[in-house]
């Protein structure tokens, strides 16, 4: 058998509740919990409707190897996630994982800067835990469109992991919670105030492109977690391509989902 091969696991739903406007919090029990690295994802199969055949690829917020539990957050955007939101505690299905290449620690010395947009927060929280465990200080920015969509509990977790020295800024596009404006504005300020060795970002493509540009202007290395429609999640179909600066394409599911922002053709 291939050493780092993706495999299939059973999972049982332990919790599945609304976390914010259009966003749900899913807790599953599955053997995959012991195998996940921060920034990796899994492809969940939602049972019941044979007319929608693809799985739901989701990154995770945290995993507990002892309890064999994984916490995920997802936005209800289509038929698949709508049906996922209807799964109840005790229901079981299968998932494929652990998938892809996750976050890596900063190469250089110094603080890290985390930037999350909307439903990009869960993988950023996984990065925060990775950094905290490695004793690397970080500041963080969490943006949402509006107050109803702010994942307050998760931002509190982020603050806890950032510690006393870490700054965590919440902002909304419409100013209904935290600062008014895009994450890139807050990011610009932090970059002027503090030095960073590495930035970590996950969010809408346009946001990540902006974050990548800013980081690059300040000479800060930047990792981005990309999202794509996926057929399989493990490199079988080549459908989730990401255009590269060097030309050609990488596959989001196996070469990513985390990429060095400088390699991505935005």
């Amino acid at each position, binding site marked *: 058998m291939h050493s780092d091969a993706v495999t299939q696991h059973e999972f049982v739903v332990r919790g599945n509740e609304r976390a914010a406007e259009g966003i749900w919090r899913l807790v599953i029990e599955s053997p995959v919990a012991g195998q996940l690295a921060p920034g990796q994802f899994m492809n969940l199969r939602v049972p019941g409707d044979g007319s929608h*055949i693809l799985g739901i690829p989701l990154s995770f917020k945290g995993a507990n190897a002892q309890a064999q539990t994984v916490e995920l957050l997802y936005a209800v955007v289509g038929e698949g996630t709508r049906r996922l939101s209807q799964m109840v505690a005790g229901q079981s299905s299968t998932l494929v994982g652990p998938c892809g290449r996750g976050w890596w620690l900063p190469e250089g010395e110094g603080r890290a800067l985390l930037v999350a947009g909307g439903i990009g927060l869960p993988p950023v929280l996984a990065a925060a835990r990775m950094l905290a465990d490695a004793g690397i200080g970080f500041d963080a920015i969490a943006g949402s469109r509006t107050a109803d969509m702010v994942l307050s509990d998760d931002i509190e977790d982020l603050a806890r992991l950032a510690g006393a020295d870490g700054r965590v800024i919440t902002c909304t596009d419409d100013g209904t919670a935290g600062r008014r404006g895009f994450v890139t504005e807050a990011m610009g300020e932090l970059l002027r105030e503090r030095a960073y060795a590495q930035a970590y970002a996950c969010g809408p493509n346009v946001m990540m492109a902006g974050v990548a540009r800013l980081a690059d202007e300040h000479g800060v290395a930047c990792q981005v977690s990309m999202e794509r429609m996926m057929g399989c999640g493990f490199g*079988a179909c*080549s459908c989730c*391509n990401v255009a590269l600066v060097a030309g050609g394409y990488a596959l989001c599911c196996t070469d990513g989902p985390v990429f060095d922002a400088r390699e991505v053709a935005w």
Partner: protein
Amino acid sequence: MVSTVSMAVDLGGIRMRNPLNTASGTYGNGVQFEGFYDVGATLGAITCKGVAAVPWDGNPAPRLAELPGSAIMNSVGLQNPGVRGFVERYGDYLQGLRDRGCQVICQIAGHSLDEYRQATELFEELAPFASGFEVNISCPNIAQGGAAMGATPEAAAQVMSVVRPLTARPVVVKMAPHDVAEIGRALEASGADALSLINTIPGMAIDIRTRRSRLARATAGVSGPAIHAIAVRMVWECANAVTIPICGIGGVASGADAAEMILAGATAVSVGTANLYDPTCVPRILVELEEWACGQGVSDINELIGAFEC
């Protein structure tokens, strides 16, 4: 499971331990499935992703859309590292599959007759592990060549006239979902050892808000359970028109689906899209197929090929 039925079949000289094969482009090059089951010990054959003489980037994103009717659409466009890159990356692994009894079918892609020739020559030189080749003359997702190369009996025969003299190994031709009887006869006449069908059926998915395609290209290939009944009919039409063996492809997700293909005239059956959403399906389908053959009271699954009664 100990079988009471001989499951071995011969796909135009490619001797398979059982009829199960994989549809090119839905199975990576096998290694991606090693975490799900022992590929080399399970499949009758694997058909690798299409490879051209030189690397191809494939099409821009998005390449995939899910359709509400039990199907997906893709426009990957044969992204591949070229024969040399393919052999470097996967040659050892694929030789290992062969050593363990799983036949390896390498798929040849090209934009022109000359590119088919170059790719075949390179494969002949660099791929001793190949049990045989599948010539893809039906990719709906590349600008020049692709489906156009297999659009008419004449064009299809032309590709065979270039590839056939270059290899003594079995040559399977991957056919498009149209005129399969007529084109199948032309391919048999021009030396094909076997035929595989169907490739994806061209379709369109439009974002009604933006008025643009949901994929980067205007049209893309539809696959999945939605097209199974159409594929079975085309396999039957083709099997009634040719004497060479056929590999049935199209929405196979169960042993029953595979059995339909065999009854319609398929010697081998490829699992495609189901590998993506149900990556452990192949071993299950194999067990189901074997149980069905047992239940039909035959001692050899070859007795069931084309056994459809009408």
